């Protein structure tokens, strides 16, 4: 694939500006119960139905760490090629809000469970490494509902105390496309690991986006603004575009950028100031005296390391080597673990390259159209492999394959049965084909003459006629060969 050049700059009147982006991703840990209590974490329960005395901060209640969440964080850290800290500390982040029952969030401040790591992105201009600053565990807050009553706010504490991993990137991202690739990559890694379902609609993955701009070539970072709690990739991209443009405008008009926290208004597509640095919360972090420091034995970390599944980067390399796919195909097919599993099943039973092409074409289009995950595909990997094999062997043409694919969707039958019962087998006998073609040519003598006198475009017309009279079953390659021979001969 030809490599493009990176070219995302904001063009101001006084020059080009580079956009510098860092993300704080909040990923909900996949676990049955909350970070410090036994309450369920299931999504969609009635309000305040998954709330323990601990989650609602009753007097005398104490947090007890959920080991499952710790293991999930370690697993994720290993998936991000990061350093796992054997010693970490839970701190209290103090602030008042109605949906924060304790009056503080238990988080990790100075000593996170996971330290520096990295994530690889495949961009059109090559592979790019994004640094991970840290990953720490923290509690989610509840939810304030302001629109159910004209004068009261309702509070739902189902989310309160659910474990989140905050994954902080280094300011290594430079464009909305890179943000897109980064989030997708994180999501993919966590889904492979089974540590976060990455479901953005349900709020399992959200991000605070830090944006600054600087003149192209400048070494020093500009003043950054933090856009809070953005919950889709599209909104992140829109917010970055708006925010970067706003900052460039300020700089060009000679104004200062205030370091501040901003909100993205999805309806108006703009960011708005929430609070400036001066009124920034003083969270008064200090180690939570209810919890002992978290000490991880190296054996636990090593055991988790041994149990890690093959992750997308490794799998991609293997797909290229083992199945002869190109980087693009490989990237697409490993992005989701279930897609890669499906592909491998198909590839085992059919042509590996053709399987990739057909999966990424018709199968994905169909799934997309129906809004289905591959796990819910109406066509099994085995049937799909048979279809690919029928194309590869020349039994049916690509065009007919599309028809068979549609019938498979409707009936759930295997392709062999469909091809046989509908007589869709490709006409690949050269003698019969030549006979048919000769008949067509003799019926269209005028066109043959025109072709021979130089109107070569008519070749397509003859192919069309052959397909028409064969009901689309004529082997296209063979048809081409015979036509050429007879017309040019």
């Amino acid at each position, binding site marked *: 694939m030809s490599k493009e050049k990176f070219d995302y700059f904001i063009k101001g009147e006084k020059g080009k500006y580079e956009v510098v982006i860092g993300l704080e991703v909040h990923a909900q840990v996949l676990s049955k119960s909350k970070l410090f209590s036994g309450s369920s974490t299931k999504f969609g329960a009635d309000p305040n139905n998954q709330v323990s*005395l601990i989650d*609602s*901060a*009753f*007097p*005398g*209640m*104490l*947090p*007890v*760490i959920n080991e499952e969440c710790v293991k999930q964080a370690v697993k994720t850290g290993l998936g991000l090629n990061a350093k796992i800290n054997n010693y970490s500390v839970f701190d*209290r982040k*103090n602030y*008042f809000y*109605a949906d924060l*029952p*304790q*009056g*503080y969030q238990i988080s990790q401040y100075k000593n996170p469970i996971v330290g520096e790591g990295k994530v690889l992105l495949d961009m059109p201009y090559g592979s790019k490494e994004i640094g991970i600053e840290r990953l720490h565990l923290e509690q989610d807050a509840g939810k304030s509902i302001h629109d159910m009553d004209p004068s009261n*706010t309702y*509070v739902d504490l189902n989310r309160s105390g659910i474990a989140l991993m905050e994954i902080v990137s280094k300011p290594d991202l430079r464009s909305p496309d890179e943000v897109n690739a980064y989030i997708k990559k994180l999501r993919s890694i966590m889904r492979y690991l089974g540590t976060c379902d990455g479901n953005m609609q349900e709020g399992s993955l959200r991000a605070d986006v830090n944006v600054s701009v600087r003149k192209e070539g400048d070494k020093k970072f500009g003043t950054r603004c933090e856009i809070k709690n953005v919950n889709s990739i599209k909104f992140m991209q829109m917010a970055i575009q708006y925010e970067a443009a706003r900052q460039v405008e300020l700089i060009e008009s000679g104004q200062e950028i205030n370091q501040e926290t901003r909100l993205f208004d999805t309806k108006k597509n703009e960011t708005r100031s929430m609070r400036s640095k001066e009124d920034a919360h*003083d969270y*008064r*972090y*200090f180690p939570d*005296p*209810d*919890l*002992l420091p978290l000490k991880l034995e190296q054996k636990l970390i090593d055991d988790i390391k041994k149990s890690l599944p093959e992750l997308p980067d490794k799998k991609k390399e293997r797909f290229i080597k083992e199945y002869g796919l190109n980087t693009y195909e490989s990237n697409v097919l490993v992005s989701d673990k279930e897609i890669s599993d499906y592909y491998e099943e198909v590839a085992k039973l059919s042509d590996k390259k053709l399987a990739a092409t057909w999966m990424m074409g018709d199968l994905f289009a169909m799934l997309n159209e129906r809004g289905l995950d591959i796990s819910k595909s109406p066509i099994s990997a085995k049937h799909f492999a048979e279809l690919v094999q029928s194309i590869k062997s020349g039994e049916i043409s690509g065009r007919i394959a599309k028809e068979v694919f549609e019938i498979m969707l409707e009936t759930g039958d295997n392709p062999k049965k469909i091809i046989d019962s509908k007589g869709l087998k490709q006409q690949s006998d050269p003698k019969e084909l030549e006979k048919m073609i000769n008949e067509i040519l003799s019926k269209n003598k005028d066109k043959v003459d025109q072709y021979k006198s130089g109107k070569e475009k008519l070749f397509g017309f003859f192919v069309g006629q052959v397909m028409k009279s064969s009901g689309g079953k004529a082997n296209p390659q063979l048809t081409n060969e015979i036509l050429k021979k007879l017309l040019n001969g």
Partner: protein
Amino acid sequence: MTDITNQSLNEIIENVKTKKVSSMELTKAYIKNIESAKKLNAFVTTTFDQAIDKAKQFDNRPNFDQLLPGIPLAVKDLFCTENTKTTAGSNILNNFIPSYESTVTKNLWNNGSFLLGKLNCDEFAMGSSNETSHYGNVINPVGDQLVPGGSSGGSSSALAANLTPATIGTDTGGSIRQPASFTGTVGLKPTYGLCSRWGIVAFASSLDQAGPMTKTIKDCAIMLESMSGFDEKDSTSINKKKEKYSKNLKDNIKGLKIGIPKEYRVDNMPNEIDELWEKGKKILKDLGAQLIDISLPHTKYALPTYYIVAPAEASSNLARYDGVKYGYRSKQGKDLVEMYEKTRSEGFGDEVKRRILIGTYVLSSGYYDAYYLKAQKVRQLIKKDFDDSFTKVDAIFTPSTPSSAFKIGEKTNDPVSMYLNDIFTVPVNLAGLPALSLPAGVDKQGHPLGLQLIGKTLDEQKILNIGFAFEKNCSFKNEIKKWWS
């Protein structure tokens, strides 16, 4: 039979076991005492009906193998009790009825006892005189003008006035030992982590520890055995085998090395305290213990350290009282922030507000390193002082308080002088060690005074043994006249 409520817990248990007295008779005797002692204001809530039911149940199907068979007990109102109002001495919890039982009280009930009522205390256990309670100050049965100490002042008063055969308190900086000292009773602060904190309204989590308050050392051992134990719901709880403190109580302390720290002789300390200490040392020496002079050089930093660490933790622990979920809520607020402000300003008393302010300040950015972080470092040094000393001695012997019970109102306008009352008790909390306050004598006015035995981590048995031997040879008798009924 003479008034049974004059007896020690151990004697009462023997009488119940030998059927000389029924649980019902016992319960009624205490109810009678409590009803005639309203002047002391020791109780915030009484649970007489429930106690009568429990006593009846016990008498119908007695189990004499339990540690506390059919014994009614009143407890500090800092322990959450299921279906019984729990106020922590605060207006902000004036309507709070927990749906759960604290681990410590549950342990007591599982050993055969039941609840008689909830005892007054300083608001959120912040105080040394029981004058910060929203439910009014408690009076010391020793004298009608005297404070009972604090924060477990309702507990010490009720115990000394025979309103409960034994009780429990919590000790964050001396809240069990100082009131015990002021009322001529025994108070033990166990090793941090020996008793579960689950279900106890938190003041300062890294210092809070529940413990027994009793008339005798034997009673103290029985209560400690009943209330302590590992609890997986408290991450700071120590996982160890339960000990039989009362069965293993021994009065032979021959050859034990007792450390006498020179730093516990403070300026302006009344001579009487010094004399009492000397008398105590002589008793231990006569019992065959070896007295060894030791130094705990960082002792003088303990009080300032405590008054950074404790308020810091408290400022965060008390953030949950915001009027949103339970407890008092002001009706005045127009929006969320105003509701918070009014609720907390109407719900908390002055001392609590003072400590929230101090705590918030020392944790603030720009001050954290100078105060909180430094205090944590000093705390380590204080702990190290003790660790070093304990390589040379088996226990440390000091006065419990720098004075006897002071007058009601005497120190309310001088918080620092109030805080100074905890000067001998606070270092122990910072180090997480067990310490016992023993009644040892009286001052010129006849007010009780206590001496303190500090043990190594989890060495409760040894300080109880020393206390047991001391008690037998001290000839202290608590002469409280029943002036209140």
